[in-house]
């Protein structure tokens, strides 16, 4: 039997969401212990036999019984310790088992409620994202730490802080609640961060963390599947994830080296994801609310539809970046806009815009700022300055993949030093 690669992570998510919905978020710690124990026993026992056909139902029953046992045990301990009686009364409640919460039909709802619960506006965004990775993607603290370039202890701290905040409420977020719309924006933002971390993140071991992108995509699809999550902004977010994820197979060459947008083999972009993205983009075009996701998805769609960099509709892209900059003024957006401008008006204009990026000091540690300066200098034929900027970018690079990418560009500056006109040979910008 071929296992789903993420079978254990998926089961963990499903179990935690169903049990938290049935027994209350305030019992999250107890529920997580029960799920951990259930899965540990399952993998040990299945190691000697095989994964049974109805493993999902078996795991659900077993985990549920473990929670019930633990609750009975808690109650028995309380009854033995009268001084704790007041607390016992507080939480004494009959364990009504709502069978329907454990049926396959409820699973999607359970997970969605958990997603909205994790995106509690009272906890910081990095904690929300850590909670999603732990509770909805089934990743361990060590795995989350690896993706975010932080220590496992730091992640454990984030998680325990987040989980104790969640445990203050008894119920998972109600999808019919009046503040659904406000919470949905927080969910969008967290999923966007999750995806960006996978796509642009600095994880040391892999240049890309496709796992994070896959998870963000799975969760946004879950959200876009049916109301109340199916809003134009959700579709726009789904579109931008699909259209970016489509390019993942092309971002590394055969030797595992990073390739920028200009050097990618576009025939290896995933056509199914492009189609899915374009469909979401179409569905996002309703209502009055133009979000950053709409604009970013539209930019990604222009890239997805262009045969190559030369045939890309840069003027439209520049226009979209202008809108995005008004909506979301940020130095990274300004940086990308400057690259688009260079495509429309030439490297000179791009360089000017780059140097004029407001708050560019916030990019002081971002390797792609000097890298973009270097690329445009290179395109202008100013090899000495290009080399300096690319070296500065190399200093800031966050992983070996980025370092090797920049070293190759520096080497190109050097090899062009003696060659004829560099302008003829170069038509590139930063990734």
């Amino acid at each position: 039997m071929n296992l789903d690669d993420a079978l254990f992570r998926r089961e963990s998510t499903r179990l935690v969401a169903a049990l938290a919905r049935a027994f209350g978020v305030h019992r999250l710690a107890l529920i997580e212990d029960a799920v951990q124990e259930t899965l540990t026993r399952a993998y040990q026992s299945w190691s000697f036999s095989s994964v049974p056909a109805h493993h999902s139902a078996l795991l659900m029953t077993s985990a549920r019984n473990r929670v019930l046992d633990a609750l009975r045990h808690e109650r028995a301990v309380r009854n033995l310790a009268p001084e704790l009686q007041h607390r016992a009364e507080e939480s004494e409640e009959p364990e009504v088992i709502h069978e329907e919460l454990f049926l396959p039909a409820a699973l999607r709802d359970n997970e969605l409620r958990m997603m909205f619960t994790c995106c509690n506006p009272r906890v910081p965004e990095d904690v929300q994202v850590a909670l999603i990775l732990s509770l909805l993607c089934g990743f361990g603290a060590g795995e989350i730490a690896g993706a975010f370039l932080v220590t496992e202890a730091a992640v454990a701290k984030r998680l325990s802080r987040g989980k104790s905040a969640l445990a203050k409420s008894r119920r998972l977020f109600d999808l019919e609640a009046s503040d659904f719309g406000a919470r949905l924006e927080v969910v969008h933002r967290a999923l966007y961060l999750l995806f960006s971390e996978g796509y642009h993140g600095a994880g040391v071991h892999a240049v890309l963390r496709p796992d994070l992108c896959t998870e963000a995509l799975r969760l946004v699809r879950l959200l876009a599947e049916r109301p109340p999550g199916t809003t134009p902004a959700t579709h726009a977010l789904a579109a931008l994830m699909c259209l970016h994820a489509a390019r993942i197979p092309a971002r590394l060459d055969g030797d595992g080296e990073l390739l920028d947008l200009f050097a990618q083999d576009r025939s290896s972009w995933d056509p199914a994801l492009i189609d899915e993205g374009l469909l979401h983009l179409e569905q996002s075009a309703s209502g009055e609310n133009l979000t950053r996701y709409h604009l970013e998805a539209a930019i990604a769609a222009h890239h997805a539809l262009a045969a190559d960099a030369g045939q890309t509709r840069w003027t439209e892209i520049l226009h979209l970046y202008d809108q995005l900059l008004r909506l979301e003024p940020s130095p990274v957006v300004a940086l990308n806009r400057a690259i688009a401008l260079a495509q429309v008006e030439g490297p000179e204009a791009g360089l000017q815009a780059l140097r004029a990026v407001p708050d560019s000091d916030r990019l002081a540690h971002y390797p792609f700022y000097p890298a973009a300066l270097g690329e445009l200098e290179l395109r202008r034929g100013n090899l000495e300055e290009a080399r300096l900027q690319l070296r500065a970018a190399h200093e800031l690079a966050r992983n070996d993949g980025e370092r090797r990418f920049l070293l190759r560009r520096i080497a190109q500056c050097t090899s062009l030093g003696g060659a004829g006109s560099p302008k003829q040979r170069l038509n590139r910008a930063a990734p």
Partner: protein
Amino acid sequence: MSQFVYVYRQSERPPSSPQQMQERLERWTTWLRNLQESKHLVDRGLPLEWSGGAVVRNRKGSISDGPYAESKDIVMGFSLIEAKDLAEAVSLAQGCPALDGAGLVEVRPVMSLP
């Protein structure tokens, strides 16, 4: 051909993420399947509970819940295999996933009738 029992021992149950559990499960499945395909596996055996058992040391009703033996390593399962000789049984055991963690494999020849 002689028969051997592999006794899998481990000192502790390592805390694992779901992904690590799945990877371990896959390593065990692959290992046992390879033994089976190379006709070395007689019986894949059974996993044993980590706790909840007892040790009977005499007839006076004095039992303890463990540790099961003086050794810190608890038997977590066993399999029956067939090999040419001890050397082959040992070399096959070297591929056992129990060795990836804090575990070990005891290779015990099954006693043959005189």
